[in-house]
Structure formats: structure tokens, C-alpha cells
């Protein structure tokens, strides 16, 4: 293992290089780009140390938009300001956008035979299962030690029922449940600070 990763870091030379590196890694990201991004940016390119990557990743989760895109923005910005951020974001999205449209236009043909219709249906079920599985996995990221069990759990159930069953617009849920959750987290963080 590297004892002094900081001194061994390398900077990208041009915006074009940023664009190509992100294009390359995003095209390998089937069903999730984050792990590929970690391998490329930290291990291969050495633009970031692992600790920097984790810190950037946790920040990128707090903000709206796809996490990987926020990560790309941050890294591009770090080296070339806003134009670097744009290069990274374009790299992340441009080619996958074209690929996904080709896939989408080809998907119609799949529904012509019963065999491929069945296959599409099977994949759809997997996609739905993935969504539920990812959500459950993320639930371990909720800091129950800090927040306690009852309030986060009640908020979660409240969000599931109001959005999933009653189909209330998400903006109201974010305003109401989001504020309760933030205020609660803030109180807990201050209480924790007082104990120290």
C-alpha cells in the first residue's frame, strides 16, 4: 500500500483528457458508475487519494442530481474551474445518452416475439428488485445511533405511504418531512456536541 499517496497524485493535463477519462469510465458503468469511478480515478489515474474520493462522494450525495455527476462536477472544477466541470459532466453523459437512445429504439423490436417479450419482462422485474434492494442497502447509511430509531423510521414510513400510496407530490414531502428530519438531526448533533 501507498504510504504517501498525496505526493504521488497526478493532475489531468487538459479538459479533453477529463472528458475522455469520464467517458471511458461511464461506458463501463453498467447498473452503477460509482465503483468504476473509484477504480479509475483513484487506482488507475491517481487524480485523487481514496480519502479524497470518499469525502467528495459523501458531499455529492447531499446535493440533488445523480451522485456520479456531482462527483464529476467537483473533480472537473478542481482542476479547470467551471469549464473543467462542464467537460467532466459532458464526458459522463454524452456518449451514454447516445447509447441509451440506440438501446431504446431497439427495444421495440424485442417485443415482437414471445421469447424476447418474456426476456424483457424478466429484466423489468430485476430492475424493480434492484430499486428496492438499493433502497434497503442505503437504509444502513441512516445513522440510527445519532438519530435514534423512532423518528427516522416514522419519517421513512410516512414518505413511503404518502408518495408510494397516496401519490402526493414530492415537493410537499420534501418540505414537510425534510424539514422535520433536518431539525431533528440538527438537535441531535447539537446534543452530541454538548456531551463532549
Amino acid at each position, binding site marked *: 500500500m501507498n504510504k504517501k499517496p498525496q505526493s504521488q497524485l497526478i493532475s489531468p493535463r487538459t479538459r479533453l483528457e477529463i472528458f475522455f477519462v469520464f467517458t471511458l469510465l461511464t461506458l463501463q458503468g453498467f447498473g452503477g458508475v460509482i465503483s468504476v469511478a473509484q477504480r479509475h480515478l483513484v487506482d488507475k489515474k491517481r487524480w485523487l487519494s481514496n480519502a479524497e474520493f470518499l469525502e467528495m462522494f459523501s458531499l455529492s450525495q447531499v446535493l440533488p442530481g445523480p451522485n456520479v*455527476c456531482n462527483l464529476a462536477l467537483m473533480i472537473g472544477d478542481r482542476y479547470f474551474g467551471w469549464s473543467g466541470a462542464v467537460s467532466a459532466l459532458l464526458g459522463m453523459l454524452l456518449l451514454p445518452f447516445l447509447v441509451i437512445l440506440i438501446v431504446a429504439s431497439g427495444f421495440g423490436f424485442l417485443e415482437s416475439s414471445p421469447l424476447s417479450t418474456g426476456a*424483457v419482462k424478466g*429484466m423489468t*422485474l430485476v430492475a424493480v*428488485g434492484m430499486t428496492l434492494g438499493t433502497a434497503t442497502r442505503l437504509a444502513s447509511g441512516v445513522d440510527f445511533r445519532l438519530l435514534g430509531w423512532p423518528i*427516522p423510521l416514522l419519517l421513512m414510513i410516512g414518505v413511503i405511504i404518502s408518495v408510494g400510496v397516496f401519490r402526493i407530490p414530492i415537493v410537499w414531502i420534501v418540505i414537510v418531512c425534510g424539514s422535520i428530519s*433536518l431539525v431533528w438531526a440538527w438537535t441531535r448533533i447539537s446534543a452530541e456536541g454538548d456531551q463532549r
Partner: protein
Amino acid sequence: MSVADWVTLLLQFVLLSFLAIGGVMAVAPDMHRVLVDERMLLTHDQFLTAVTIGKVSPGPNALMVAVLGYQVAGLSGAIAMSLAMVIPSATLAFYALRWTKFNAQRPGVRAFKFGSAPIVVGLLLATGLVLMKNFSSTVETIFVIVIAVIIWRTKVHLMLLMLIGATLGAIGLI
């Protein structure tokens, strides 16, 4: 669709873009409500197909929005909806990231981080619930739950699961 319809639709997506903490899948219930239930531009099955294509194609899952746009209005729809979904959140994130980089330890930022987690998990579970709406058979529901548990507990590659799903579906087991 008239120009006015398009403008309001895109504005709805712009709003969702700002709300998409935890990614685009977290606001999928609202996209479903707008496109399928309210405007009836897409069927529930088309929406499911877009989610599936988003997962089997390379790149961020968020690009399912491009498929939704494509299904509604071809290439121009795909471009319009993708821009409406990506640019607002990216602009906000860009400036917020510059700020948070130096303020990550402030209690407000930490409260935001801890406080948003339960909401994001709830929204993603709601997405799953909405997508499961039309499942007719128990076999389908059981299969979905099995996949969810595998994703949750193991590190099996997603594409392998897709392959298994496609095979089981093709031979008519699910």
C-alpha cells in the same frame, strides 16, 4: 402536445431536478404521476421499460429520463427532458459543492447530510412500490423480493442478475 403543455411539463421536471437528492430514481414516483397518471403520455409498462433500459445501459441511471423523453416525443423529447433534468441540479450542485467543500464540518451541513438520509431511503422505497403497481402474479412479487434481497445482502453483479431475469422470463418461468 401544445407548446404550453411542453413548457409546463419541462418546468415540472426542472422542479424535480432540484429535488433529486439521492438521484433521479428518488423522484421517479412524481415522474410516473405526471407522465402516466395525469397527462397519460405513457403507459405504466412504458415507464417500467424506461427504468429497465436505464439500468441495462451504461452510464448514470438518471438517463432513464432520456428514454422517457424519447418515448413521448422522439429525439427532441429525449434532449429536452434530459436537459430539464440535468442542468438545474448540476448548476445548483456546482455552486453548492464549492461552498460545502470549505464548510463540510458546519452543523448545518452535517444536519443536512444525516437528515436527508431517511427521506431518500423512503423515496426510493416508494419508487419500488409505484413500479410494482401492476404486478399480477405472486411469482412476480416473490421474484422481485428475492432480487431485492440479493442486491441488499450480496455483491452479485447487476448484469448477471439481468441475465438470469432475461433467461427466466424467456422460458416463461416468471
